[in-house]
């Protein structure tokens, strides 16, 4: 029998600590598969965030450095500049990490045209710390710090990072994808290939924003969460390529 699908060598055998049905595991697999398929496992350095993905270094079978909250792009900048153009350097960051405390780092890394790739998980909430409102939380969305729903007057509107970063000259590839269907999971993998390709071809900064789920803090089952991603997140966060040079 021929193998149609099996776990990539670029993931370790460690059981992931993520909650049942959390989108993080899907995206970890996609990133690992792309690294393996590009033959870059020995030349890759990942940078793990603070947030639910803080233990990412246990799951990727590549070298990984942990960074302080939001500072992954700065750490990745150092790694890439030391290791040079033959390396593949990526960060894996959630929305609390990248779009809040780390906003300055991500904007300035793109601004410098840093040749790193960023995997940005947008699940519209702070996961690890217990479901607080994030900059990406939708209007009206209830969280532990917006118990009546996010109020625009009080907190502004959710931030669209892909659109923002696409305006920056140093950005070479920016795409927003989602994990809600088989087709979109396959598109997410293609987007990661493009982003890593932009880095390897020395074009500049690249980022893939992946709309993902947080069943635990959304208070929904994993299946309901995928449906909510489709109904609530997709209309506000349109999928597509925002920058390609």
């Amino acid at each position: 029998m021929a193998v149609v699908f099996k776990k990539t060598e670029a993931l370790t055998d460690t059981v992931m600590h993520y909650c049942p049905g959390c989108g993080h595991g899907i995206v970890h697999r996609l990133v690992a598969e792309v690294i393996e398929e590009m033959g870059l496992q020995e030349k890759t350095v990942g940078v793990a965030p603070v947030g639910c993905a803080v233990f990412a270094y246990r799951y990727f079978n590549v070298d990984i450095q942990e960074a302080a909250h939001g500072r992954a792009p700065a750490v990745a900048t150092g790694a890439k500049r030391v290791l040079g153009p033959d390396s593949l350097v990526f960060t894996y960051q959630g929305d609390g990490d990248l779009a809040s405390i780390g906003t300055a780092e991500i904007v300035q890394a793109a601004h410098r045209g840093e040749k790193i790739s960023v995997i940005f998980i947008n699940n519209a909430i702070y996961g690890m710390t217990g479901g607080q409102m994030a900059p990406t939380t939708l209007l009206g969305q209830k969280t532990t710090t917006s118990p009546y729903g996010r109020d625009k007057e009080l907190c502004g509107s959710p931030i669209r990072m892909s659109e923002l970063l696409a305006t920056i000259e140093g950005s070479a590839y920016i795409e927003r994808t989602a994990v809600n269907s088989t087709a979109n999971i396959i598109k997410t993998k293609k987007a990661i290939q493009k982003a890593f390709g932009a880095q390897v071809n020395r074009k500049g900064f690249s980022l893939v924003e992946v709309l993902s789920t947080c069943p635990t803090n959304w208070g929904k089952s994993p299946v309901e969460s995928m449906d909510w991603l489709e109904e609530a997140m997709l209309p506000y966060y349109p999928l597509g390529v925002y920058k390609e040079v």
Partner: protein
Amino acid sequence: MAKVTINEERCKGCGLCVRACPKKIMQLSKTKLNSKGYHPAEVTEPEACIACAACARTCPDVVIQVER
């Protein structure tokens, strides 16, 4: 002939593979529990499987292997 192998011990019973299967031939076991206390996924009609791997691609814990 398709073969889907699920590592039941590592399954978290999330049901995403059930949602993704186009042939609607997956379910969470009604009788089994793994040592973590989850009802693992299972294929109800293996002969109807088309080896599309939609289940495996959506599984966050990468516990499904598909052969044809």
